[in-house]
């Protein structure tokens, strides 16, 4: 084995420029493959990270318009969701429905403190929404279930609002009172958010009670149970639509009466999309590499041609076809693997730099999660390299074995 490596080393050293140029093509191919794979994995991990921050087991339902006549009603009827529907869904005891929640916006409301007032409106919110609306409570607490049950007059302000109406955004604002809709509200928490810090949040039940009667709401968010795949995801949609159809008297198969956004199914779809992205990247990468490999194959052909005489000598003094075949193939494998690895190393270094600049650890929002080359890719690439090298060498090697010693020696 050592001898074979030595033989290969000698021939490679003997053709430095040629080997170098070919090797560059291979290294470049692998480099591109690594970068492409790394970036697509980055996008994927970014996607996974952002989906993990949100609840996947939710279905949003909006107001819709019927598209089918039902029990004497014409189609084209508006279905208005009511605050009471939230409770209806919560008491439906359907196995797919864990909990229903909704918001109730009171747009016109002003919130005033000792210094100033804001008019961003107040929003009735369920406790679950803190996470869902990217609300980051940095002082005090968010609305809880007890607030909901007792319709407490408590309010969560943004840092910006607190600063405006109290002149301070420190924790001593907690427990103070603000005025809104003619009532006094106790401040229980302060939040920050990456966008829109104008809203103030109160318990959903309190907001409903203040609106009087059964106010219309824009949408209901249903937390689902037992949703594990596409089928159960669709079944959960049917269950919600069924419940609403009973209340609002529309055809349970009428999708447009209660349009939905199923986050779990979206997730499955995006995941499918990510998989396709992964395949596409592999295909592009491998095609890039193929041009490198063809280069190697080409060079090996040239090399075999140039060395016809040498191969003839070797055959005359006792080299078997197998010896020649393995030597040429291993030479090709050596070139592809060595330069391929150079490509892997370069790719890894560049990915590290990209991660520093654009990865999730970097400043600002980025479509990428962690940008890195995982061991798995490196292993796959190694296998691909060895196979590719062997293939690149195979045909030239077969040609080399056809060299007849007599003809080769006559060359001179």
């Amino acid at each position, binding site marked *: 084995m050592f*001898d074979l490596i030595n033989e290969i080393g000698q021939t490679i*050293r*003997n053709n430095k420029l040629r080997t170098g140029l070919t090797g560059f093509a291979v290294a470049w191919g692998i480099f591109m493959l690594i970068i492409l794979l790394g970036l697509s994995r980055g996008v994927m991990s970014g996607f996974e990270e952002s989906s993990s921050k949100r609840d996947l087991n939710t279905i949003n339902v909006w107001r819709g318009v019927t598209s089918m006549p039902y029990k004497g009603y014409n189609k084209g009827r508006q279905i208005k969701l009511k605050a009471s529907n939230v409770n209806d869904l919560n008491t439906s005891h359907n196995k797919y429905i864990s909990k229903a929640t909704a918001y109730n916006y009171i747009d016109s409301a002003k919130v005033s403190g000792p210094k100033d007032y804001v008019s961003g409106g107040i929003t009735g919110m369920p406790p679950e929404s803190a996470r869902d609306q990217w609300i980051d409570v940095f002082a005090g607490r968010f609305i809880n279930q007890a607030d909901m049950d007792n319709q407490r007059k408590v309010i969560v302000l943004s840092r910006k609002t607190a600063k405006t109406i109290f002149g301070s955004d420190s924790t001593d604002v907690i427990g103070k009172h603000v005025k809104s809709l003619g009532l006094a509200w106790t401040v229980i928490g302060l939040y920050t958010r990456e966008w829109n810090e104008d809203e103030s949040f109160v318990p959903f039940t309190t907001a409903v009670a203040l609106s009087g009667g059964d106010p219309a709401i824009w949408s209901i968010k249903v937390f689902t149970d037992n949703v594990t795949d596409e089928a159960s995801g669709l079944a959960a949609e049917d269950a919600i639509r069924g419940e609403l159809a009973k209340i609002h008297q529309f055809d349970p198969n009428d999708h447009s009466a209660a349009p939905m956004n199923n986050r779990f199914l979206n997730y499955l779809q995006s995941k499918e999309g990510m998989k396709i992205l992964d395949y596409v990247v592999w295909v592009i990468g491998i095609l890039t590499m193929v041009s490198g490999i063809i280069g190697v194959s080409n060079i090996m052909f040239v090399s075999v041609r140039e060395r016809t005489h040498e191969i003839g000598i*070797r*055959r*005359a*003094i*006792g*080299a*078997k076809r197998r010896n020649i075949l393995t030597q040429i193939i291993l030479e090709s494998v050596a070139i592809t693997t060595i330069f391929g690895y150079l490509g892997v190393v370069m790719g890894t270094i560049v990915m590290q730099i990209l991660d520093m600049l654009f990865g999730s650890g970097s400043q600002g929002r980025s479509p990428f999660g962690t940008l890195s080359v995982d061991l798995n890719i490196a292993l796959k690439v190694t296998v691909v390299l060895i196979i590719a090298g062997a293939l690149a060498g195979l045909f030239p090697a077969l040609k080399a074995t056809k060299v007849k010693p007599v003809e080769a020696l006559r060359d001179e």
Partner: protein
Amino acid sequence: MIIQLKDINKTYPGVVPLHVLKDINLEIDRGELVAIMGASGSGKSTLLNILGILDNYDSGEYHLDGVLIKNLSENRAAELRNRLIGFVFQSFNLISYKNAVENVALPLFYQGVSRRKRNALAMEQLERMGLADRAHHLPGELSGGQKQRVAIARALITKPSIILADEPTGALDSTTSHDVMNLFRELNAEGMTIIIVTHDPGVGAATNRIIRISDGRIVPDEPIITDIKPQIIV
């Protein structure tokens, strides 16, 4: 008898088939120093190729050292070449990027002999050729005579049954040619069977027997000159 050719025929196929060897019958004993001579196109190179198991023949029988050489597989042929025959070529046929030791040791590489052992054996052969100090030179750094001696060392390293030399002095000046021929005679004196293909009468005269070949046939009336002291010009 180390070589026995019986009714060997060889035709190169083509639009006009070329019958290059016609009923060749030839016997060479162990320890002979033989020259095969003939004009170009006479078939002597083809005969050499058949003797060297580099080419096939169409009919007849060829025994080399008791082995029938007929319809061999490529691998078997390579093995027998490696074991039984040492080749010396006109153009030396050394591998240019290997130094003298590596070139000499190459046949043993294909026998699977360990690196250390084959390099030791190669050094031994080079010492015998008086080239120990050139062992690590590349062929390009050696003179023609030195190259041919390296080639002879390579031919000897497997301890073959015969040495086949194809115009071994063709690329050498006359002084070096004589040196090489003397070397062959010395080896022959040690018992090695040597067959030299040549068209140089001087080389032929330095052997013990001349086989003349003309138009694909062995010229029959050539006297065997074993009783005449061959002339060596030193």
